């Protein structure tokens, strides 16, 4: 059944932000689209021509069953098949930390899309730092629910790490937004080190000339 109901706002605080970054009626590829919640949101509020790739079979099947164009695939392996500039936006929402080779994935995204939107949990957030510093254990929290041995997140980074990677591969940061632990936007003019400390999530709009 075509279920275009919107996701629970608590679950993915970055969805509305991403939707704000996307122009109406554009072509969008969501890499790591899960059950298709973000795609469904974008189709509803932005009337996009949306496609998704998802690693988990259960996620793909749910996405297709709700009427979305989703295929089973892997960000590390299956991006080569897309031609250059095939999409207006390629979105990597809460997925980059789970890829095997984040740098190659990001380069591929910048090749396929005119614009790239990446959102990720900030491993530099003070809560993470405190858990490691005081608890001496890998942080486990509401936003980072996995233990070290069962986590799919093999390449965590901080906001400053991500900015450094963008520099290295020649990506232009067109917009950057950080969210605090409650999902509120941080003041846009704060320096990186502030964001890196109190931003729980980063959302970046990138392009490559």
């Amino acid at each position, binding site marked *: *059944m*075509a279920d275009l109901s919107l996701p629970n706002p608590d679950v993915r605080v970055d969805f509305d932000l991403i939707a704000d970054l996307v122009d109406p009626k554009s072509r969008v590829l969501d890499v790591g689209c899960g059950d298709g919640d973000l795609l469904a949101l974008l189709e509803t509020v932005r009337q996009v*021509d949306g*496609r998704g790739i998802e690693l988990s*079979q259960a996620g*793909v*099947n749910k*996405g*297709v*069953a*709700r*009427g*979305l*164009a*989703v*295929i*089973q695939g892997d960000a590390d392996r*299956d991006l080569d*098949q*897309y*031609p250059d500039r*095939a999409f207006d936006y390629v979105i990597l929402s809460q997925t980059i930390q789970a890829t095997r080779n984040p740098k190659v994935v990001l380069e591929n995204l910048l090749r396929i899309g005119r614009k790239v939107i990446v959102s990720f949990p900030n491993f530099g957030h003070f809560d993470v730092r405190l858990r490691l510093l005081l608890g001496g254990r890998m942080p486990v929290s509401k936003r980072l629910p996995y233990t070290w041995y069962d986590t799919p997140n093999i390449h965590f980074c901080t906001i400053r790490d991500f900015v450094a990677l963008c520099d290295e591969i020649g990506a232009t940061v067109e917009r950057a937004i950080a969210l605090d632990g409650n999902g509120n936007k941080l003041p846009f003019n704060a320096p990186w080190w502030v964001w890196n400390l109190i931003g729980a999530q980063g959302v970046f709009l990138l392009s490559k000339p």
Partner: protein
Amino acid sequence: MTAIDALDPDAQNALKRSEADHPSSPVLSCPADAPLALQSGAAIGPWQIAYQTYGTLNAGKSNAILICHALTGDQHVANDHPVTGKPGWWTLMVGPGRPIDTDRFFVICANVLGGCMGTTGPASTNPATGRAYGLDLPVVTIADMVNAQARLVDHFGIETLFAVVGGSMGGMQVLEWAASYPERVFSAVAIAASYRHSSQNIAFHEVGRQAVMADPDWAGGRYLDQGRNPKKGLAVARMAAHITYMSDRSLHAKFGRNLQDREHLTFGFDADFQIESYLRHQGMTFVDRFDANSYLYVTRAMDYFDLTARSDGSLSRVFKGTRTRFCLISFTSDWLFPTAESRAVVHALNGAGASVSFVEIDSDRGHDSFLLDIPEQYRIVRGFLTGAARARGIDGPAPPPAGE
């Protein structure tokens, strides 16, 4: 025991001949001055195509779905079969409230060219001789089948089909439709299919054809004239093919090494094992309803299928610029049309910038899964058609019943 089993062989042949020339289904007859040009360079005319329809074509003619049947299927997708009396072959997919909802869509299913249920095939009467065509019918291809269907779609005045749907050889026709008539296919659902027949698949088909032709009753293809029927050869062909439609695991789960109606091995060549008995039954019931020469023609059409032949091997180029919405489905245990084949189509479609959904369904029941009660498949097709109907601006299928 079905109706046809009660008949003597001559009466069985007569019933099959009558379905070939004067089927129970409606027929579009094309006169000699409207021949069908074939890929081989030959043409046939007069020729005819037999079909079933379900549901109602809307005023805008925008709600038509064409269903393409597999190798041994026919147009009786959702009604009882006129020869065997059995229910349609895809009643889980097609019908009121089903994913291909006949309350919402106008559904067409035609017998393929080369078939034996009323569309011109080797069992049809050759107007030049007054006898069955036999091997005098030119070899037909998947593209020829699709061109014949296109004439039927023209006949209904339908410019663009809302969807073309099929599994196995039906899925080949779906891909051929999308490649040959992209502007006439709004959405395409190809299940357990491929863009070309593999070497292994050709090999199995060749075994089947050789079994038919080795039967003395085949009589060089002229068995209908002589009142004979190469039942043994065709049954063996069907038995071999049937194995390829299932998985080792499903065979083992269903039959294991269980013995058939006996306590001990007989140390003979009777059907000791249940699997032997089952295959013999599959073979014998198949020959009641299928024409041996049709089996040769339709398997040949599948062997010749290769979408990349028209584009120097590039599948992406075949679909370049397409606006059709695609849905591909494969099954984990299907070794005849494995997932890798569907995935190659998906990659090519992505390369062509097409809209594509692709799902691999977990099933241990092999290639035949697409015909079976596997709720996930029906849920996915319903969802895909719902999304496509939304894009087309027509009513989609009814919401799924509980349990689908």
